[in-house]
């Protein structure tokens, strides 16, 4: 099943989607986070393949990236760790375009596929430059997720919605990844704009830090991506069980909100 089918099915079943993020290779036993996320009710999990220069990331994910690289984590090892896993949650790789260029899009996507990854996010690859990778991803059966931002004008948003696979990543605000105290207004506006132009799932990311945020963001979108808030806990030494518990709280908040409506 493709990432998109899976997410659509769940969304269509009335569920708000939850996609936590983890930096691959952040600890020797990092895959335990994946299990914990799955157990906490994640609908998909974003796995960061660390790149030395994460220009769209705020301090938390930068630190996580540095820590993983300092440990010697490589994309190959991370994919190796994943491919051995039993799991039922779709995995979405995310990385910067240089790692794709380094292997070449075909080899890169093939490696993802072989590891059982079904989606890919490349934050520094806008629509205009995405052609090569779109083709390679499609051939490998990987959903290449495109990002939309509050600054994206409508015609371009329409094209992003059309060409994105898996879901559309709605960047909640003009800024980098990182925890925020409130959900930006722009998140709601953007999600609504995207939803008007597509049936594909729309996930809001950047700055979703609490169950309340998740609930708020998910009102106009199909779900949320939680990155820095998770990684802050991981960097602080929280074990998979504890981070899973946080996510479970978010899961419950999202579910309760649905039930309340």
């Amino acid at each position, binding site marked *: 099943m493709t990432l998109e089918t899976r997410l659509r099915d769940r969304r269509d079943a009335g569920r708000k989607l939850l996609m936590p993020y983890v930096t691959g290779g952040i600890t020797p036993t990092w895959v335990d986070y994946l299990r914990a996320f799955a157990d906490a009710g994640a609908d998909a999990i974003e796995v960061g393949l660390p*790149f*030395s*220069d*994460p*220009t*769209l*990331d*705020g301090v938390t994910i*930068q630190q996580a990236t*540095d820590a993983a*690289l300092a440990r010697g984590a*490589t*994309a*190959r090892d991370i994919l190796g760790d994943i491919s051995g896993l039993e799991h039922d949650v779709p995995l979405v790789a995310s990385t*910067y*375009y*240089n*790692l794709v*260029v*380094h*292997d070449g899009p075909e080899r890169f996507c093939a490696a993802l596929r072989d590891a059982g990854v079904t989606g890919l996010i490349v*934050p*520094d*690859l*806008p*629509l*205009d*430059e995405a052609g090569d990778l779109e083709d390679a991803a499609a051939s490998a059966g990987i959903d290449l997720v*495109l*990002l*939309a*931002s*509050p*600054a*994206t*004008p409508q015609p*371009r948003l329409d094209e*992003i919605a059309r060409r994105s696979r898996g879901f559309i990543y709605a*960047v909640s*605000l*003009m*800024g*980098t990844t990182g925890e925020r105290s409130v959900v930006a207004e722009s998140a709601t506006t953007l999600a609504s704009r995207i939803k008007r132009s597509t049936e594909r799932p729309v996930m809001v990311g950047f700055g979703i830090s609490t169950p309340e945020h998740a609930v708020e963001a998910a009102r106009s979108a199909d779900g949320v991506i939680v990155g820095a808030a998770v990684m802050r806990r991981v960097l602080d030494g929280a074990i998979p069980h504890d981070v899973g518990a946080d996510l479970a709280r978010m899961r419950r908040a999202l579910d309760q909100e649905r039930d309340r409506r």
Partner: protein
Amino acid sequence: MSDPGRQGRFGEYGGGYVPESLVAACREVEEAFREAWVDPGFRGSLARLLAVHIGRPTPLTPVRRLSAELGINLLLKREDLAHTGSHKINNVTGQALLASRMGKTRLIAETGAGQHGVATATVAALLGLKATVFMGERDIERQALNVFRMRMLGAEVIPVGTGSRTLKDATSQAMRHWVGATEDSYYCVGSVIGPHPYPWMVRTFQRVIGDEARGQCASELSTGVPDYVVACVGGGSNAAGTFAGFVDTSARLVGVEAEGGAGAALGRAGVLHGARSLFLQDGHGQIVEAHSVAAGLDYPGVGPEHAYLRDLGRARYVTVTDDEAISALVRLARTEGIVPAIESAHAVAWVIRAAGAGELPSGATVLLTLSGRGDKDVSTLKEQL
């Protein structure tokens, strides 16, 4: 070296690999630049500022004593004499005028040697704009003079403590910051790097170096055109600006990189800071940290147009060690009374080496862009000498 089109391509290099959040901002810059560049009003204001405020044209200095020692005919294009002490101001003057025209109220910049930061702070003050400059902590230490100058000029200097704590990370941080500030802020990139339209626009603003030098060579040299055109390459803006004036001549173009930051000479294709170009990388595609005594060359990549010129074979890229650069600096000081920036000293070092090795034929005419002056490098030199 012409218009790279809407996609900003130089062969396979260039492009705009930016987060979606910056796509609109880059387009806005491109539109504004295209419009301004054909507006005689803009061109006139720029030319006037360069003349009355920056001190252009800069002279072409025939170097007599060192030339005699080397058996060649060396000419220096004196960007060290431009206001603030390097070529960086040419580009900043253009971009800051553009930013004003676009109604932006603040300039964001990254800086390595601090020259681009000082230039940005300078033109910001002149045009009544705010300036926020990102600078690696390591560079802040070794370029203390320039940090102080920026602050005197009213700019906010923000230390960057991540990664190599030099230019690469300052650039990343500046881009991150811009993402959240595109509304009122203009990102004033300091070299021919970054997403389209920057590599092209910065080269266009810097080609005043090459155009002036071309005219000056025409009157100074019996051959009209030098045999060699040499410039140091960090991101590659002074080289690109210089080469642009000579790319259609028979002159051989030589870009000189720091051995520890030789994107063009030793890098492989990749994507960083918005462009596809050549970067130093490890076997896993991670960008390798550059290491150079010259903060302005301490960058693991090179502008996309240089990557293209290299592939075409139109320009050659060579490397020089820290020690060679430092002794070239001292030699130029002692023979010609010019203390060059340690970046520029790399170009001098290659000429000295190549003349010594017979690689530069005896009697060859060599135009070298002296990109800046060495005042900023005193603390570095004190340590090294």
